[in-house]
């Protein structure tokens, strides 16, 4: 799925028959996710995103799924002060050594360039029309997975607890008196966790009214390429249009939805530990764990009540 893996976990509350039904529902959700991913991926020539990126017209009509994710991309941009920017595909491909390097006007400036604000989305009854300057191409790898996880979870409301894991961006819903444990993978050591969070609706002091959570992890240590003397990775800083220079190796955020958690985790990595931590604190996350290149683990106080 969009270059990653997806998992659906369901906890039925009934007898064995409910387990069979849960398996069928999980399969149906997986098929739905595959259909959405087929629209949003940039790794298939036939996807709607690929066709949009290749379209030479200034205005391109798009279907409802692509419109919804691009719309969320715009919202994420506003949420993060422009740090999340879905209009940076060319900069990412340049970082991978797959495209022509582009440098934004005013690169290196302290303020975001907000280059992607040159595009707009005109919502219609069904779908939307995307307007963008010639050559601007979208990258939905990040925002798309969180969106997929949240949308898929909506289809599993009938179960006591359900989790949709879209390649590390996790949407969670816990019914009354439920608990579920989540490991935060340690990027330095396969098979090991930095921490384990136990999300629960059992303890009244830790109760969440709707039982919904989003958990996502972003970092620079997986999609990483060594090009010359400067290591390169996939998280592009919109202020420079180059891979972010950051001391954060990995950031994990617990928020209300997977798409929010993904956008906030990515921003924390790009901003660096000091500014990123302050940003998360200001936004008001439900938890955050940052690993720095000094082997420090910065744990936001909101996280403490979930630590197993």
């Amino acid at each position, binding site marked *: 799925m969009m*270059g*990653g*893996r997806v*998992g659906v*976990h369901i*906890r039925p509350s009934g007898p064995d028959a409910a387990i069979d039904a849960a398996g069928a529902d999980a399969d149906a959700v997986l098929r739905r996710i595959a259909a959405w991913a087929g629209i949003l991926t940039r790794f298939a020539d036939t996807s709607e995103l690929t066709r949009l990126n290749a379209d030479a017209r200034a205005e391109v009509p798009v279907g409802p799924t692509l419109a919804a994710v691009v719309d969320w991309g715009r919202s994420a941009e506003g949420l993060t002060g422009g740090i999340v920017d879905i209009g940076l595909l060319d900069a990412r491909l340049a970082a991978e050594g797959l495209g022509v390097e582009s440098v934004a006007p005013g690169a290196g400036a302290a303020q975001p360039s907000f280059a992607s604000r040159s595009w707009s989305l005109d919502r219609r009854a069904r779908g939307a029309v995307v307007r963008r300057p010639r050559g601007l191409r979208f990258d939905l*790898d*990040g925002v798309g*997975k969180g969106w997929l996880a949240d949308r898929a979870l909506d289809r599993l409301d009938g179960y006591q607890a359900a*989790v949709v*894991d879209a*390649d*590390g*961006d*996790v949407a969670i819903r816990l019914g009354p008196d439920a*608990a*579920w*444990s*989540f*490991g*935060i*993978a340690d*990027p330095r050591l396969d098979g090991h*966790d930095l921490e*384990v969070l136990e999300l629960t609706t059992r303890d009244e002091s830790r109760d969440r009214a709707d039982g919904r959570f989003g*958990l*996502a*992890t*972003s*970092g620079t*240590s*997986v*999609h990483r390429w060594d090009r010359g003397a400067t290591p390169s990775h996939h998280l592009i800083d919109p202020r420079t249009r180059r891979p972010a220079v950051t001391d954060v190796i*990995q950031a*994990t955020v617990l928020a209300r939805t997977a798409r929010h958690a993904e956008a906030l985790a990515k921003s924390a990595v790009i901003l660096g530990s000091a500014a990123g931590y302050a940003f998360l604190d200001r936004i008001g996350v439900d938890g955050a764990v940052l690993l720095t290149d000094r082997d420090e683990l910065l744990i936001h106080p909101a996280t403490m009540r979930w630590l197993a």
Partner: protein
Amino acid sequence: MTHASPRAVARPVPTTTATRPLSPVRDGLPAPTRKPRPDPGPLRIAIGLTGLATASALMTAFLNPATGADAATGAATTSTVTIVPGATPDPVHVRHVVQYVQLKPGQTAPPKAVVKQAPAPKPRVVVVTTKQSGKP
């Protein structure tokens, strides 16, 4: 200030000389025949094989100590001997007491064993891991 330097002292090397008086030769008599001695070869081979067997047994004890129970079959034993390498040359006797054997489906308990039912499984809490995208 002077330092006393070590002196080399030549010490006489002790030597030993073994002498044996020659056997008297009795004129006109044939020289006495020596009593034939047994061939030492087979005995040496036997001693060598015994040493090899001992070394093999010791290595087996080191590398694969016997256990008190054969979990695959459910058969239980109460003691065994394990040789622990260390400063003490004597083998250390370790007594293994089998507290319980978990029976697999189809296995029967050893005679006189007390059989207890396993507790009911607790609700499973699946651990899902959040990680950077693309990480296997």
